[in-house]
């Protein structure tokens, strides 16, 4: 377990290989990275650089091929599918580029289902109320996604991702489908969540301006973290 002093995420010699047709693709070729609790880290890199694969491994959506990945001291590499499901339920919150809200549920129910899946009371606690207030969607909870703008849908997705107090919030191109005004609003919200609620955030982006919202930026290319990053990679 994380003792509160070490990094909340510790990655060492992480490799991921998967097969596309009859070709083996080396998506990650030895990644080392530490993220401290309460950090807001931006991960940038061109398509195919491996940042999404890193995101998927951290989120427990796919297992690594080799190396170690620990979140709060729990190693993901040896986890079973059930273990990774538990990880997604308790330790990780996802924000996707396409929002990925359930279309038949209202915004409030989209948030509530995350609580339900986690087996928690559907009552929004004080922390989450503060988060909803920060996100500015407390008056839109009865609306279905189709009645909301992209920016509003992404804010609902952020609320859903953090309502269970995950150790880390993984945001995959959260502004990729938004115009500049809504992008600024969502990025400011992520920074507010990080600063006021001390939420650890890893954000993937192509956009250097978006990346600048984080405390530091990690650059990836060809499955490796490359020079040029801002801030320490490994403590």
């Amino acid at each position, binding site marked *: 377990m994380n003792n509160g002093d070490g990094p909340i995420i510790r990655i060492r010699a992480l490799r991921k290989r998967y097969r596309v047709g009859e070709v083996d693709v080396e998506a990650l070729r030895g990644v080392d990275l530490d993220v401290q609790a309460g950090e807001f880290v931006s991960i940038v890199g061109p398509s195919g650089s491996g940042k999404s694969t890193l995101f*998927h491994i951290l989120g427990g*959506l*796919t297992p690594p091929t080799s190396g170690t990945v620990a979140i709060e001291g729990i190693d993901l590499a040896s986890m079973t599918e059930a273990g990774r499901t538990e990880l*997604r339920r308790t330790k990780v919150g996802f924000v996707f580029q396409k929002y990925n*809200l359930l279309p038949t549920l209202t915004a409030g129910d989209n948030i509530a289902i995350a609580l339900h899946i986690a087996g928690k009371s559907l009552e929004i606690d004080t922390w989450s109320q503060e988060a909803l207030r920060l996100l500015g969607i407390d008056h839109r909870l009865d609306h279905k996604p189709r009645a909301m703008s992209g920016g509003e849908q992404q804010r609902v997705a952020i609320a859903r991702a953090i309502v269970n107090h995950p150790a880390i919030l993984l945001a995959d191109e959260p502004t990729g489908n938004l115009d500049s005004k809504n992008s600024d609003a969502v990025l400011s919200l992520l920074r507010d969540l990080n600063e006021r609620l001390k939420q650890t955030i890893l954000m993937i982006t192509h956009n250097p301006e978006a990346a600048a919202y984080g405390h530091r930026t990690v650059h990836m290319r060809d499955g490796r973290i490359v020079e040029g990053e801002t801030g320490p990679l490994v403590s």
Partner: protein
Amino acid sequence: MILTLVGVSRGMVEESKKRASGVGADIWVRPPNSSLLSFSSAAMSEKLIDFFAQQPHVVIATGSANYSAGVMEPVSGVDLEKFARMSGGFRFLEGGTIRNPDDIMVDDRFAAQRNLHAGDKLTLWNRSWNISGIFEAGKLARIILPMAVVQELSGATGRISQIFLKLDDPKNTQGVIAALKANPALQGYPIYSVEEWTSLFSVNRITGLRAFIGVVITLAVVVGFLVVFLSMYTAVLERTREIGILKALGATPGYILGILLRETAVLAAGGALLGIGLTFGTRWMVNTFAGPSLTQTIVMDWWPITTGIALAGSVLGTLYPGWKAIRQDALEALQYE
């Protein structure tokens, strides 16, 4: 579909039962080798009526000569005066009894389906008939003529199809039947009390009907299962991305399968209720448009059976695509377009 088909099969049987009971006889005598529901043409001598009339305890003996006015449109020819005394008489809703050679009587169901009224003309067997009266359904056939007319039409003068006996006291029924069966001259004639006769009008007693219903129900179950299976399979495919979202949120396989099964159960229960409601519509359509020989009843005892079939079929039909869905990789599911 199941409720309608069972309702039609049972409706026809119960309608026959009701019309048999409406005769008012205590004993029925059928021709030798006759089948239960056959509305066969005249097969016994008319003289038998006089023979039965002379038997102890018999107060009225009469019979009917049956004929057909087309596919499944039987006609009964009766001795109107004797039949009225035995059955209590026809209850006329319009007009009255037959008085002229070209008169004919029809029941209200036949009249309603053909929009006929007393005094209208009805063409049967290339002959124009005058409708003398429209009577309340429930006695023999839907079309009634004097016995002699039917015998002439069917070319069976002096022959009848069945004989009805009314006794001085219904308590004597079994004794009279025993005495008649003991008579060597009546060997081979099926002789029934009215209770025995009407009890034969059940789905289980009619050769082939039970098997027919079994085949229909099996087909309905198979078709229903396939429809539900394919519907759920398509629904699960269409919701692959949603299942991926649930998996990304940490939903367990049991949680996702539970959602699918609960949704299916609600759909199946709703579908069963809708099906039950629709049978009232099909009853109206069958009884209004399908011809006077077809009758559909509402089979309430089949409601829980069909609901069970719908639930079982839909749940089983959900398990396979549900099982596939929960085994699906979360990443693939999220990338599904």
